[in-house]
């Protein structure tokens, strides 16, 4: 035995626990990860949930169908409009009403703007997690424009509550179309800048390339959805396979990568920014005229039965399941949130890497903790 081998065989390490969170800035909220680590190497990750549980599903059983909508703002707050849309679509499905074309198109445009805003925030925070502070400011500069559009049309910047069962709360603002077009021309010059600043950077590449590989089989068996699954080659875009609202009227590509590492999850989202822009461009010039809502009864009663609706939020597939007994409240309402399933792959893909990589992996999974806990 050489001298080195003797030292190695006598060098003993012990595994120990360490808490990451619930107030760790890199966990994006109150998520607690119980890490079992050996030095710097992660052996096991156990997410401990429940710190921000607000029993939204139980509160929905108490509320009327109009009131449920505003609670979904507080789940995945970065794609609040899409959550609202999911609840409205399931109620409309139950009532068997067809919303006007205008509503569908406006809903789609705002949903895509929400997706861009969400991905912008994610891009800024992703850069910050791997040590590039500048990205945060650039992303927030562009997100600010979208927030202004929302504030002018919907009245709020984050928790918009613009959808109601049967349509929209009020019509779009007269400035809406102009502002969206301004944003598109502005943002088209900014995405290449994002690429130059971060995507090509050699430090960023080394932090993400080949790190946290999620295989296609694992992505399917863990129920991952959204950009996380699409980076592993799983075709799961609800906008394509179960088209809703105005997505059947537009042409867009489902972004697919096959590597499954952190960098491809990053690239999926950057590509999705382009796709979202193209969807908005196709719709913004021909918003059909018409009503902005179908008048529903003041007290909505869904017929007896079960209803399910899936939508694609910025994080993946959101499913809303309503079990109605024919009264004005749902008997049971369940949200299948994308964040929960996506978080469950964390232990699988981050095992064996270092803590610094865990931060980068978590950032590319793009978790929003209120969505996981509800």
């Amino acid at each position: 035995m050489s001298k080195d081998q003797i030292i190695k065989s006598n060098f003993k390490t012990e595994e120990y626990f360490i808490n990451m969170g619930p107030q760790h800035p890199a966990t994006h909220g109150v998520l607690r990860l119980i890490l079992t680590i050996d030095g710097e190497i992660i052996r096991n990750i156990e997410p401990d949930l429940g710190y921000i549980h607000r029993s939204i599903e139980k509160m929905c059983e108490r509320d009327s169908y109009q009131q449920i909508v505003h609670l979904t703002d507080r789940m995945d707050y970065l794609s609040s409009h899409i959550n609202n849309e999911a609840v409205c679509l399931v109620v409309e499905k139950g009532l068997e009403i067809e919303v006007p074309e205008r509503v569908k198109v406006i809903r789609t445009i705002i949903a895509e703007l929400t997706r861009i805003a969400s991905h912008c925030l994610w891009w800024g925070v992703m850069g910050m997690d791997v040590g590039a502070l500048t990205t945060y400011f650039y992303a927030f500069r562009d997100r600010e424009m979208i927030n202004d559009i929302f504030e002018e049309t919907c009245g709020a910047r984050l928790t918009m509550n613009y959808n109601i069962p049967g349509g929209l709360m009020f019509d779009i603002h007269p400035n809406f179309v102009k502002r969206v077009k301004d944003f598109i021309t502005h943002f088209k010059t900014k995405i290449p800048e994002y690429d130059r600043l971060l995507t090509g950077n050699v430090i960023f590449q080394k932090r993400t390339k080949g790190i946290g590989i999620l295989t296609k089989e694992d992505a399917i068996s863990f129920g991952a959805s959204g950009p996380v699954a699409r980076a592993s080659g799983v075709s799961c875009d609800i906008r394509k396979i179960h088209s809703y609202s105005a997505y059947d009227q537009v042409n867009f590509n489902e972004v697919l990568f096959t590597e499954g590492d952190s960098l491809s999850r990053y690239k999926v989202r950057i590509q999705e920014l382009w796709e979202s822009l193209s969807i908005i461009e196709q719709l913004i010039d021909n918003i059909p005229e018409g009503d902005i809502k179908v008048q529903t009864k003041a007290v909505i009663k869904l017929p007896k039965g079960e209803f399910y609706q899936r939508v694609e939020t910025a994080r993946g597939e959101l499913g809303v399941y309503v079990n109605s007994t024919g009264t004005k409240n749902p008997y049971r309402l369940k949200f299948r949130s994308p964040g929960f399933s996506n978080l469950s792959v964390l232990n699988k893909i981050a095992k064996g890497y270092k803590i610094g990589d865990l931060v980068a992996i978590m950032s590319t999974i793009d978790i929003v903790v209120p969505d996981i806990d509800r």
Partner: protein
Amino acid sequence: MSYFSDIYNGIKTLLTGMRVTGGYFLNARKGTLTQQYPDNRETLKMFDRFRGEVVMPHDENNEHQCTGCQKCEIACPNGSIEIIWDRAIVEETGKKKKKIDQHIYHLSMCTMCGLCIEACPTDAIVWAQNFENSVYDRTQLTKVLNQPGSKVKDGIED
């Protein structure tokens, strides 16, 4: 050999990124977004639809448009609105009519969902655009929206 190409790539990507940030550094005055917030209160104008808090507008005769139908109270998801009402005899007709005594609004519980304002049939309550709602004592966040001595405008029926 890869050692030197790594150095070359590292410096190249670094400079590519620096060109972006450097461009902004040199054109820092162009397209400034920073708002000098507490100092620009006079010029700062919020959007018309911005949801700040619920208010009840009164006209110059101290009259509002609330009939006390309680639709806002029912629509509110979290019990932010309470209406204390009474029935009073209208002198001309001799019939009893509902009138509000106090329209109580708990700003501390409000989630700004806007359902009450959608529900109101007479547009008695509207959104105000002020957003500086912080106070030192939370009892100040419970507000009575109708002014003392006010009454409902003539001809407003729900």
